[in-house]
Each structure stands twice: as structure tokens, then as C-alpha cells.
């Protein structure tokens, strides 16, 4: 019961769910109290007072075609609808969960037979099965209830079976089995408690449907039979006088709607409260450009001199429920035309965030740039409007990312992806862009340049995929290529090929390159200068050869030492890092 109280508290914290709960409680209360409320007899006909409109004296909601008091009928009808709907839900939950528990726990042929049956039930269009059941049993409220139960059993059976099958081989179940408990007892005392939340979620999300369906069957004249009337059959009767007295149909329909919407609100609340994935709070979706929120006085930053790119005092943070976390804490780097700058650091050092901040590609929210400047060819990108950034991205500034399996679109042909990059900056006919893409594939030394474009990423090898990414980056003859761990996902021989390719392209085309890696060996091979990052700051910077030969910062020494030399790794890693970030 304490679990239930906690759940209730969590649901009530959700304002919409709380509103639903209050609404439903009010309706339930009135329905339960119907016998003691001062209501007219719901079945007393009065031919003189037929079809009175609402707010008539003595009939607050008016009267129906037989002169019966609508308010009274509405409350008694709601009582019946709720009773039948809730009974149907509980029965469906009970039977469906039992089937799911047994199928999931027993496995093998029991599972196969039961779930085949359930699948076949689900092969029917929903309501049609209910109709078939009512057709067999004959019209009547109780038969409508059975029909709704049968139709809803599969939802419970499937969900519960899935969870149970996952629990079957868990340690606590094995332990119970070893301690000599019988299978039935294990199922009820060990498995069932763990499955209950799933049953509650399914119940709370389906009870609204079930009330709707019972009302629907009654509306069709297949549920409650006169003189007995639930909300659905009242609606059905009202339909006959729709044009002269619309309130007779409108009012019971409105009540069904209110009941169902309150149940759906509660259902959503329960699901959110019980689903652990939602509990942490869902972050907003990332926008097209990273937000910038920097102190006005510092906007602009120093002039960039002769550098193609000058990053000064860059600060990037991530907003979390516990306040902002700084990932980049005042980084300054610059790259000249044709130069290669390496940024090295362990994962979490802020090197990728720095790289993404340049093109304002940090996911935002939660990312936000809180200070500094990024000057590209003199223009401050942190102040640039989205249109300017869009033209620069893939145009003069191109990116190559780490894992091309996740960074290429999985459902688009690679040729189209490259052609698209071309056409985003240079309007041309599709065929011309495709031919251009084939030339790029040749430049990155992909085999079968003419046909490889029609492949999907998953059909290529890792090295081929990364060549496609590089071709895409080169599509519009950029001035700067930012390569974020482009070889990390590849094996060593392929890695060497890709590095050679990048190096050759850079020299041929006079590209400026920012190369991000955690591997000093890779950087030393490719870059003129290197910046070493630790915990969001640059701790050392200089010509690559000099830093490699004479690392000054202890962290750099560890990185240099981590370049694999057989037998040395262990004692270097054991040594403590003195100093840390500046």
C-alpha cells in the first residue's frame, strides 16, 4: 500500500494527471451516490413533458423522447457504464496477465501455443472481433462486456509475457527455485510483484478505451437493452431525435468524453511516473545552431590577425537538472591557412565540444556557449545568424566525424548524401551533382566510383564509409576541415590509409585542418602544431615535434608515453599525474 501511496504522490505532481484524477473522482462520487441523491426516477415516462430542453423547471438537463428526466438517467447511466467498463478492464487484466505470466514463465511450446492464439486474436481488426463475439452471444450488456474483455486480453498477455520472459532466468528466480519453492509459488511471489507495474501501466492506458468500446457497443444497440440504459445506449436513443433535440445525444456523449479524457490523463501520468526512462526528465530537442549566451561586454573578442580561424577564450557548458556543467573553460587556439592543428586529450577533456562549438554544432539544448569568440576569416561565428552559419557549414568549414556508421544517414544512398552536400552550396542539376560525387569518390580513392554511390552505408566497410565522409567534407572545396577522431572507429591498417589520404589531400589542396584525437602517434604524424586539453582547458601548446620530444606538462608526458611502445605502458599508467589542469 505504501507503494501505491508513493505512486499516487508522483502522479499528483503531474498537474494534468491530477486534474484527471479530480474529475474522475467527482464523476465516480456522483455515480456511487446515485441511489441517495434526490433524483427523479430515471425510467418514469411522462408523455406531456417530452424533449424538454435543458434548464427546464424540474429537469435540469431536460427530458428525452419519452419524457424521462435526463439528469437522472445520465447519472444512472454513468453508473452502469463505469461499472461495466471497470469490470471489463479488471477481467481483461486478470486473464490477459495470467496468460502472459504462464506463457513467459513456462516458455517453449506452452509459450508458442498461447502466443500464437493471442497473435491470431490480434490479427482481427479490433472492434470486428468484439462484433463477432456479440453476434455469437447475442446483444446484451453482459455479452458486450465479454466481447470487450476478449478483445483486450491480447494487450495484457503480450506486455506481461515480454516482461516475464525477461525475468525468468534472473538470479532471484533461480534462487527461489533452488530453495525448493514450487513453480506456481515462484510465479506468484517472485515474478508477479515485478510484473505488477507493467500491468498497472497497461491497465491505466486501456481502461479508457474499454469504457469507450462498451459505450460504443451499446450505441449500436448491441449492449444494454431497454429499459436498462448506459451512456452508450442513451446516445443511441438520442441519435433518433438528433435534429429536434440535440441535447439528448450531446449530454451523454459529453460525459463519456469526460470520463475517457480523465482516465487518459491519469493513464499518461501513471506511465510517466512508472517509466524509469522518463523520470530523469526528457531533454529538449537540439536546434540547428548552438545557443550563445555570453556577457555582452566581451562579445567580439580580439581581431584574428592572419589566422584563418581564431578561437579566443571559448566557453561551452551543458545545462543539467543540477545546474550548468562547464565542458570547455576558456579555450584559445588558432589555425592558419594550410596548417594542421592537432587537439589531443582523453575522452571528456572537451576537445570534441571545442570542435563542435566552432561550427555551432553542439547539441543545444542542453549545450550553450557562454563566452569567448570564434573568428573565421575575421567574422565572429558566435554572433553570426543561422543563414550565414549554414552557408559556411559544408561550404568553407567542413566536418569529418568519428563513427561513419552513425554519422551517415543509414537510409540514404551514399552518393545521394554527397550530391546533396554539393547541391546545398552550389545549385546544379541532380545528374551533375552525381557526376561530381563520383569524382570526389575517386579523389578519396574509393573503388568503383561510378557504382559505389548507390550503396547504403551499412553495405560498405568502415574504411569505405570514412572515405565517403571525407569525400562529403571535400564536396565544396573547404578552407578548413575539422576532423573529430576520424580514425578511432577503424582498425589499425585502415587507420593508416585514412591518415595518409587526409594528409595528401591537405597538402594538395592547401587545407587548414583541425585534427582531434586521443592518440599522440596519429597527431604527430599529421600535424604541425598540437594543443593538449585536460578537463576543458588547454594545458600545453606548441609545435607537434617539440611537444612530443619534450612534453612539459605531466599530463602531456602521460599521453606521449601512451603511444604504444611494448612493455612500457604499465609503469607509465601507474604513475600519478601531478599538477592537473592549470
Amino acid at each position, binding site marked *: 500500500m505504501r507503494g501505491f501511496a508513493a505512486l499516487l504522490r508522483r502522479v499528483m505532481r503531474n498537474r494534468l494527471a491530477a486534474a484527471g484524477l479530480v474529475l474522475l473522482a467527482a464523476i465516480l462520487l456522483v455515480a456511487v451516490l446515485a441511489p441517495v441523491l434526490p433524483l427523479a426516477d430515471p425510467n418514469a415516462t411522462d408523455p406531456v413533458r417530452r424533449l424538454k430542453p435543458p434548464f427546464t423547471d424540474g429537469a435540469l438537463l431536460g427530458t428525452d423522447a419519452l419524457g424521462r428526466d435526463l439528469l437522472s438517467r445520465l447519472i444512472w447511466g454513468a453508473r452502469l457504464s463505469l461499472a461495466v467498463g471497470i469490470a471489463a478492464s479488471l477481467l481483461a487484466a486478470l486473464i490477459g496477465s495470467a496468460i502472459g505470466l504462464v506463457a513467459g514463465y513456462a516458455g517453449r511450446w506452452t509459450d508458442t501455443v498461447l502466443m*500464437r*492464439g493471442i*497473435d*491470431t486474436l490480434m*490479427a*482481427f*481488426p*479490433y*472492434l*470486428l*472481433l468484439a*462484433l*463477432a463475439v*456479440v*453476434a455469437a452471444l*447475442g446483444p446484451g450488456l453482459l455479452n458486450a462486456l465479454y466481447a470487450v474483455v476478449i478483445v483486450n486480453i491480447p494487450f495484457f498477455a503480450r506486455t506481461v509475457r515480454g516482461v516475464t520472459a525477461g525475468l525468468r532466468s534472473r538470479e532471484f528466480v533461480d534462487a527461489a527455485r533452488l530453495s525448493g519453492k514450487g513453480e506456481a509459488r515462484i510465479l506468484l511471489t517472485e515474478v508477479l510483484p515485478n510484473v505488477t507495474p507493467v500491468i498497472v501501466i497497461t491497465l491505466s492506458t486501456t481502461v*479508457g478505451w474499454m469504457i*469507450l468500446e462498451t*459505450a*460504443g457497443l451499446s*450505441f*449500436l*444497440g*448491441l449492449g444494454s437493452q431497454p429499459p436498462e440504459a448506459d451512456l452508450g445506449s442513451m*446516445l443511441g436513443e*438520442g441519435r433518433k431525435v*438528433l*435534429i429536434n433535440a*440535440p441535447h439528448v*445525444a*450531446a449530454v451523454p*456523449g459529453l460525459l*463519456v*468524453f469526460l470520463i*475517457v*479524457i480523465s482516465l*487518459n490523463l491519469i493513464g*499518461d501520468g501513471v506511465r510517466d511516473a512508472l517509466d524509469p526512462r522518463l523520470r530523469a526528465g526528457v531533454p529538449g*530537442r*537540439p536546434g*540547428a545552431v548552438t545557443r550563445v549566451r555570453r556577457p555582452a561586454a566581451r562579445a567580439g573578442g580580439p581581431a584574428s590577425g592572419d589566422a584563418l580561424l581564431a578561437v579566443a577564450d571559448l566557453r561551452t557548458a551543458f545545462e543539467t537538472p543540477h545546474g550548468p556543467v562547464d565542458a570547455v573553460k576558456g579555450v584559445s587556439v588558432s589555425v592558419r591557412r594550410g596548417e594542421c592543428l592537432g587537439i589531443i586529450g582523453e575522452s571528456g577533456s572537451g576537445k570534441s565540444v571545442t570542435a*563542435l562549438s566552432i561550427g555551432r*554544432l553542439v547539441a543545444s539544448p542542453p549545450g550553450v556557449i557562454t563566452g569567448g569568440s570564434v573568428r573565421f576569416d575575421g567574422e565572429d561565428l558566435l554572433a553570426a545568424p*543561422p543563414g550565414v552559419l*549554414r552557408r559556411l*557549414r*559544408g561550404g568553407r568549414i567542413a566536418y569529418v*566525424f568519428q563513427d561513419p556508421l552513425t*554519422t*551517415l*544517414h*543509414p*537510409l*540514404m544512398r551514399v552518393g545521394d548524401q554527397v550530391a*546533396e552536400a554539393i547541391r*546545398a552550396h552550389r545549385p546544379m542539376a541532380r545528374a551533375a551533382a552525381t557526376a561530381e560525387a563520383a569524382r570526389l569518390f575517386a579523389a578519396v580513392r574509393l573503388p568503383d566510383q561510378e557504382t559505389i554511390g548507390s550503396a*547504403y552505408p*551499412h*553495405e560498405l566497410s568502415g574504411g569505405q564509409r570514412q572515405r565517403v565522409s571525407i569525400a*562529403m567534407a571535400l564536396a565544396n572545396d573547404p578552407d578548413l576541415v575539422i576532423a573529430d577522431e576520424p580514425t578511432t572507429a577503424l582498425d589499425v591498417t585502415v587507420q593508416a590509409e585514412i591518415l595518409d589520404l587526409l594528409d595528401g589531400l591537405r597538402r594538395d589542396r592547401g587545407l587548414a585542418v583541425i585534427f582531434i584525437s586521443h592518440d599522440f602517434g596519429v597527431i604527430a604524424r599529421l600535424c604541425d602544431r598540437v594543443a593538449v586539453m585536460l578537463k576543458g582547458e588547454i594545458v600545453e601548446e606548441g609545435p607537434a615535434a617539440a611537444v612530443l620530444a619534450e612534453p612539459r606538462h605531466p599530463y602531456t608526458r602521460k599521453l606521449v608515453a601512451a603511444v604504444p611502445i611494448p612493455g612500457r605502458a604499465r609503469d607509465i599508467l601507474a604513475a600519478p599525474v601531478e599538477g592537473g589542469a592549470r
Partner: protein
Amino acid sequence: MAAYIAGRLIALVPVLFGLSLIVFTIMALIPGDPATAILGSYATPENVERLNRELGLDRSLPVQYATWLGNVVAGDLGQSTSLNRPVLDEVMERFPATLILAGAALVLASVLGLLAGIVSAVRQYGLADKLVTLAVLVGISMPSFWLGLLLILAFSVRLKVLPVSGMYAIYGGGDAADLLRHLVLPATTLAIVAAGIIARLTRSAMLEVLRQDFIRTARAKGLPERRVVFVHALRAALVTVIPVIGVQAGFVLGGAVYIETVFQWPGIGRMLVDAISTRDILLVQGGVLVVAASYVLLNLVADVLQRLMDPRIGA
């Protein structure tokens, strides 16, 4: 792909077999004596016995099932007692009307649901998102038969811009424009719930996709945000949305029963409701079987579509 479709068609056989078994079983469980039900309570015992023999009801259930299934496969669904004509003729005459209604509703629901879901995801937590979320909640909580009545009141009775009911005007109608005018209200009513569910799912699928790395790549290429959302994100999201549209087809086919009743649409749903009240068992059996089989085929189409959308499946 052809081999895949062929394989899936073969896999349909046991499903269709299961469907027929369930339909037959339900009907076989009918309490009381069908012959008495058909002939009425004043029938002589001899007549009841003769009819039972004619209907094959004096034989064992498995034999009855085998006979019935054989007839069904041969296209003989029996004779409707209330209409006094072959069930298959009646069903085939009614089915196109249901297909038009359900098809229009499903298309409408998909378009509305996808658009609302995309807008909602792109403007997450914004005003548009809140409005869509509210509209979805209201839409899926609304009894469709009630909504249909309200729409008739508003558009047919008060504003007099659309016909109250039926599929064609009784005098002088019959062309496509006439059908369209009659279709607007029932198709909209039928589409609302499905549109809500599709919108909900599209929203969450889009939000999931928009967080993926390949979306960042699309932006790094300098694509216009329009293209990032409507081409790159939507294409990936559709892979999860299309099976749901397939499932919704079942809800729409079922929901058509209410809508056909409300709008006097001459489809299979209304036929079934009438057949149930006249206890015309064979007509119910035949109608349910045909609609269920077409739903199974529809789901096959959805699977094939999903496969065409996602080259990774089965690779």
C-alpha cells in the same frame, strides 16, 4: 524483394487459417439451436431436424469446420437468411463502400498525424507542441460516434454545407464530387483517433531521430533546416511510424462500424450490425472473415513498405 513478398504470402496461410478457425469457433459456440433461431419457435421438430441436416449441423464440429472451410475457399460463404441472397454477393457489394471510407480516413489520419507530429517535435515544449498535445488528448478521448453526431449537427443541420448521411445524393448525385461531399464528415470523424495516435508516435519518433548523429552531419553539411527535418529526420522516423499506421488500419476498419451507423454509410459495418440484430449468422461470419483477411493483407503491405524504406532490414 519478390522472394520476400512470396515468403510473406506463404506465411499468411497459417494466419488466415487461424482467423477462419476463430470465426468458425465463435459461431459454433452460439447457444441454442440455429435452425430454431432461423425457423422461429413455432417450427415443427421435423422441419428443424431437416434444416439441421441441410445446414450440416447434425455432424461433428471438425467435419462441419472442414466442410465450411472448403466452401469458403471455393468462394461459397453460404446464403444470408435475412437477405435471402448469397453472403459473398452482399459482402462484395458492401465492401467497396467500407474501403473508400476507411481508405480516405487512413490517408487523412496519416497526413494529419504526420504533420501534427512533426510540428510538435520541431517546436518541442513550444505553443504549437502544447496545442497539438492537447488536440491529440481530446481527439483520442472522444467517442467517434458522438463526434460524428456533433459534426452532423454543426455542418449539415446548422450550416447546411454538407449532406447529413448516405454515400450519394438520392436524386441527381452519383458522380465523384457528390461522393466527396458525402465522404468529408464520416472520413474526418473516423480519422480523428488514428490521427491522434499517429501524431503522438510521430512526435516521439522524430524527437528520437533528431538527437541522432546523422542529423548533426546533415547540419554540418549546411543543409537548410527544412531539409534536415522533412527529409533526413522524417525518413528515419517513418520507419517506426509506418507499422503503426498499419495497426491503425485495423482500428479504422473496426471504427468504420460506428461511423457507417452514424452516417448511414452503405458499408460492411452497418451490414454487420444489422446482421447481428437479425441473427443472420452466416452473413456475420462472411463479413468478419472478409474484413479480417483484408486487414491481414494490409499489414503485409505495411511490412513491405517498411522494408522498402529501410534497406538495413534483412541485409
